[in-house]
């Protein structure tokens, strides 16, 4: 009889300990979930920012944009910029 009481007591203790562990872990998971959620929000915000910046870079480095900016600054294309090694072009007019 004494042995049975001991077993029952042990079972009750184990149950209480397990319940305590369960409560602790649940709280831990809930806290982690909040952290994960915050991190996910940060990732989304950074991704959004990256995409916006990427679009701005593409816009600014497009040939169309560069050409119009160059024209504004007074640059013009030079079609005779190739120097021939075989039949050299004149680099200075002497006559």
């Amino acid at each position, binding site marked *: 009889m004494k042995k049975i009481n001991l077993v029952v007591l042990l079972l009750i203790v184990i149950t209480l300990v397990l319940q305590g562990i369960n409560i602790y872990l649940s709280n831990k998971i809930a806290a*982690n979930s909040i952290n994960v*959620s915050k991190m996910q929000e940060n990732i989304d915000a950074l991704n959004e920012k990256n995409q916006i910046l990427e*679009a701005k870079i*593409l816009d600014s*480095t497009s040939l169309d944009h560069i050409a119009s900016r160059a024209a504004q600054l007074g640059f013009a294309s030079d079609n005779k910029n190739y120097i021939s090694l*075989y039949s050299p072009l004149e680099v200075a007019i002497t006559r």
Partner: protein
Amino acid sequence: MKKTSNIRLRLVLIGFAVLFLLLVIRLFYWQVVNAEDLKDYGLSQSTESLDVPASRGQILASDGFALATNKISYLVYANPRLVSDKDVYAQKLSGLLDMDQATISALLSRKLFWVRLESGLNDVQKKAIDNLHLDGIGFEQQQERFYPEASMAAQLIGFVGKDAYGNQQGYFGLEGYYNDQLEGRSGSLYVIKDALGNPVINDIRQEKKIDGRNLVLTLNRTIQYDTQTALEQGVVKYGGESGTAIVMDPQTGKVLAMAQVPNFDPQIYYNFPGESYVNQAVSDLYEPGSTFKVLVMSAAIDMNLVKPETQCNICAGPVPIDSYKIETWDNKYFPNTTMTDVIQHSDNTGMVFVGRKLGVDNLVSYLKNYGIDETTGIDLQGEVSGTMRPKDQWGAIDLATASFGQGISVTPIQLLTAVSAIANGGSLMKPYVVDKIITDDGKEIAIKPQVKRRVIKESTSQIMTWMMVNAVENGESKWTKIDGYKIAGKTGTAQIPVAGHYDPKNTNASFVGFFPADKPRFAILVIVNKPKTSIYGSETAAPIFFQIAQDLINEYNIPPSQ
């Protein structure tokens, strides 16, 4: 007594059996017949499903620069029930949105919970509205197609619109042709909820989305820009109605540039007329005129029917055929002219001589080998092909006119692909625009050059190349050629068929060629439709051609020919 109790026992047994049967039937109803509905009902109570849209794939130039990509934009909406003073709201918002005060005020007066104000806002506009701190005004993030180079290669790239269900759908060019590859597959996110309806973060299940595949093009961005600029300036300078230019690597069939005037901006395609979306390079049939002569001449040389020094014995004057008379374009005639001079002078009577030597059977057979009556198979939406009439329907006049490129229709891409066969030693290549497809997980699928068939012998290609070089050096377009470079080319001035006859005033002016002649790296075709300053290809399309060639020389550092 015993008998009565047995009956009662059996009755109870039967009763239990019936109840058990009913239970089985009910369970069968819930677990088999109604299982799916019950499952869905359970899921709807315990989970929340969110659609995760796939990102549309990018279209990249050969240098990796995005020609079509996605960018974030915002839709601004209002909840009119939370708006305190609609006139103040309208006044503040009208300065930041592309809407007038009255329209905003009218929208805010509607008795709804959600009213769309404007979409396509950028982050600066969003921030400016945010800073107003207006209650009842919110934003929804959206993905929209973005073309950083604006109208560059617009007809080749196409655009993204909506299908009948409001989903993104690519139309025209690559957006249309590769829509299945670009669109990807949307995924779903299932968030498990607890008894109070709060999401359980560590128990998220998902059906993974598959982003669209990226396309890496053969297109060289710098060459495309230069080609587009040269064509635009040329068409304006020569008063043309429209123009097309293609630059191709004749050894592989890679398209390096494909430009068209007039153009459109794929970002705001709906502001342009529908006909500007059509890629003339693959969808426009035209009579090529004298640029076609190089194909007919190469066929006759390939069959040993003529040689460069063969003399024409019918070239002393106009050639009568049935009730028609074939004349030269400038009414100058060269008795006993050689085949080299026939190409140099673009002599129609000389080509009639060549056509007669070939005969209908051989001419049709060679033109078919050159791919004139079939689509090239280029990976762009909307490619068409002209059809050649059956051999038994060819008369003497049809043979004569076809020999100098009239009475027969081709698309610009067909002609350039055929001329590229002369440039590369005789092989007809399949032209292509997409060089690589990159999958969602980074795997690269390379597209290899494809030889369709051999059309002419290598020796023929060499002879024809030098006849075309001679045409550039000594022909009508020599005034605009680039000194120091051997460029093979041919002018074209074609009459335009209109309702059963030829337009007496307008022409299609063109120039086709390739260089460096000893080892061609670039084949170029330029077409100017209905130029006004001059009707001739040598005075309109040729200078544009040589401008593009000069740009290619500069871009690729091509040394002069020795």
